[in-house]
């Protein structure tokens, strides 16, 4: 009995569980894909390979959520949400680990992973200010 292959979403979280942020990279045209998909949305190739990203990103923008939308206690407002732009190109929603100060649009970030799983059993990729790494 063979096990079902992982879906692109499952593969994404599987890498995250090992502390790796990998996205699908197109062998046809070199584009990176997020969210995970079935084919490259630049050249329509299906020849996608899960490659690690550099972990470098910049703040695209951010907000502080004040309204409660989720029952998960980890998402009790107020909390910061950040949209980052990865060095490879794709944008993604994430957050910054520290609460010491607000982010600035365009500032450099680097990838960090939560040690513990969230309510859905996922280890979330997050980001930290670049200076915290020095």
């Amino acid at each position, binding site marked *: 009995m063979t096990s079902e292959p992982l879906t692109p979403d499952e593969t994404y979280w599987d890498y995250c569980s090992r502390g790796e942020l990998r996205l699908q990279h197109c062998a046809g045209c070199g584009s990176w894909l*997020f969210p995970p998909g079935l084919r490259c949305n630049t050249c329509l190739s299906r020849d996608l390979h899960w490659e690690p990203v550099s972990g470098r990103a910049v703040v695209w923008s951010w*907000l502080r959520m004040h309204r409660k939308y989720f029952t998960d206690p980890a998402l009790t407002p107020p909390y910061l949400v950040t*949209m980052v732009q990865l060095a490879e190109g794709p944008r993604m929603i994430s*957050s910054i680990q520290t609460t010491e100060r607000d982010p600035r649009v*365009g500032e450099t970030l680097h990838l960090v992973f939560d040690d513990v799983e969230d309510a*859905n059993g996922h280890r979330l990729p997050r980001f930290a200010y670049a200076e915290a790494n020095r």
Partner: protein
Amino acid sequence: MSIHERDQIAIIGVGTTSFRQLFEKKDATHSAYDLAADAFALALADAGIEKDEIDGLFSARVPSYIRMADVLGIQRPKVLNGFDGAGRMSGVSLQLAAAAIQSGLATTIALVYGNNGRSAGAKYGGETPSPTGLYDASYGMTSPGASLALMWQRYTETYGVPDGALAPLAMNNRCNASLNPDAVFREPFDKQTYLDASYIAEPLRLLDYCLINDGGVALIVTTVERARKLGGPVVVLSATAGRGDVTNFYASDDYWLESSRAVAADLREKSGVGPDQIKCVQIYDNFTPTILFSLEGFGFCEPGEGWRFVDQDFESPDALAINTSGGHTSEGYMQGWALHAEAVRQLRGDSAGKQLKDVDVVQYICASPIITSHIFRRLE
């Protein structure tokens, strides 16, 4: 007949329920079909035509166009279709109705919209599906307002915009709504009240947000030839243009600037009308920053200057009149539909809100993942 030909399509009837009366019935539960049907009956009466003259039906936001057609007793229309509840669909629906009439698919199309968001408990956030929804939800990202908050924060840092820059837009909407007996909220407020309002998705405050209310809107659209036979002033959809600007995220990299400029240029070519000839705009305002992005994208001011442009005395006769019936933040959240009705009423001189003098052209603008814009005129 070409779709590019000007002044071929007329809006002969508009109908809107009283959003205020519906809002005051706090415990009542309304059906979206019923709200749409109320608006349809009002639009028929407004047009002064009989129901059997309708040969096309487009529904929006109601779950099923089949049921809608059955509720209205329009069982054999020549064109029949349904549009989802996204606000961008109001402009799209009118475009496609015009195209259907110009191509001869039908002669007189009713567009009916029913929204029972308040009584159905719509929250516009939470664990809702979208291309990135499951990923976003992990970090607590949800709701259209939060997407606009991301865009507005990026804009303010990019252009050095002070806090409170959106206040004039929220105040203008409310001021116009104060004249509109059917508006949900009619009490004007000052800038300090705006600043004191609670944040929802900071930097956006409660008073930057559209309402959640119940209501229906209907439009009846036909050929100008047929409209002229009805007598009275003829309001036409002089020209319309649109373009998708779609990514995984609602938040647009350039605030839809490039796409809006393309739509504006297309519309100008078709209508011969540009921003310098426009005194009245109805701008899709799910959240106040959208108004500002629309003004920039459609050439009323330069990119990055919208916040200075709207820091104006809206009561001055020289000011650009925006959302004269109160907009989504004060009149009611009818996802662009009531703004269409208001454009027609301005041109007929029977606005529900702030009626301008001598207005003969009104522009509708919606900046969103589908950008649409129309020029409405009154024919003599």
